């Protein structure tokens, strides 16, 4: 059973880490943050396999640099930032493959535990399709804002861009989204 093998090898892994790294147990951190990391990559790349590849690389980078991180909050911030940048890098490297996501290619949303918050699946799919056509920085800002409920300053720090750029980009994203799907959500075009 693979997990037993992992657990057996894990003793060696933790023995090599620093005291702080032991305190921030890597396995706990993976389990705590896997949904956040995978979801950012998944919503940005719109591809489950690509999202897993990016997410695994992000956690391996965390594993290598765990001793440099100071607290759980620092880990969360670091993971969010690195996932954003690695997702953007991945999309740039595979630009031709992910240039335009058609309706049929767009994956179904993986199952969600709380089905009450699911909303209209067709509308959500249409929204994700429109989000997939946004420029990369704008797309990532929208994802951080609405997936992670991140504040504007948090987004600016994570993406290393000025706060005013975040504000103006989000404003433009709203305008684009309202223009393309405003009618579907009961709003007229602005």
């Amino acid at each position: 059973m693979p997990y037993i093998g992992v657990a057996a090898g894990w003793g060696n892994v933790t023995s090599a880490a620093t005291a702080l790294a032991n305190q921030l147990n890597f396995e706990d951190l993976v389990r705590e943050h896997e949904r956040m990391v995978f979801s950012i990559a998944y919503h940005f790349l719109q591809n489950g396999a690509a999202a897993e590849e990016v997410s695994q690389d992000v956690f391996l980078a965390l594993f290598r640099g765990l001793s440099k991180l100071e607290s759980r909050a620092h880990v969360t911030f670091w993971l969010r930032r690195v996932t954003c940048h690695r997702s953007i890098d991945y999309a740039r490297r595979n630009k031709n493959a992910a240039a335009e996501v058609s309706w049929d290619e767009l994956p179904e949303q993986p199952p969600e535990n709380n089905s009450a918050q699911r909303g209209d699946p067709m509308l959500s799919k249409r929204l994700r399709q429109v989000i997939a056509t946004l420029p990369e920085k704008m797309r990532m800002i929208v994802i951080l804002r609405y997936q992670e409920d991140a504040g504007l300053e948090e987004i600016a720090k994570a993406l290393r861009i000025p706060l005013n750029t975040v504000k103006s980009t989000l404003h433009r994203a709203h305008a684009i989204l309202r223009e393309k799907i405003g009618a579907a959500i009961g709003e007229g075009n602005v």
Partner: protein
Amino acid sequence: MSDKLEQELKKALRRVEPPASFAERVLARAAEEEKPGAPLRPWPQWLGMGGLRWAAASALCAALATSGLVYHHERQKQGEEAKEQLMLALRITSSKLQIAAEGVQQMNSPEENQP
């Protein structure tokens, strides 16, 4: 910004579950990296990518500084050689002038001018 659009965005972009056994695969890869036979990274772990950039920048600065010093040293050496050549030329000229002056002096001396 309308609340309706924001609500729909939150629903469309809700967090999703990663594929089954995702964490196990991450932990397996991490454990694999720590095995004694695992391939070494091309640079020390403490260096990292940021450190690598700094090391490359430092090496470039050191190379530029060294080449600057070598160039300065070469220029100084060439200047000294030119100075020595000039001094030699002046010494030769000076001795020739001395001989000429002595000749002129002899021609002008009273003993030699006597019939």
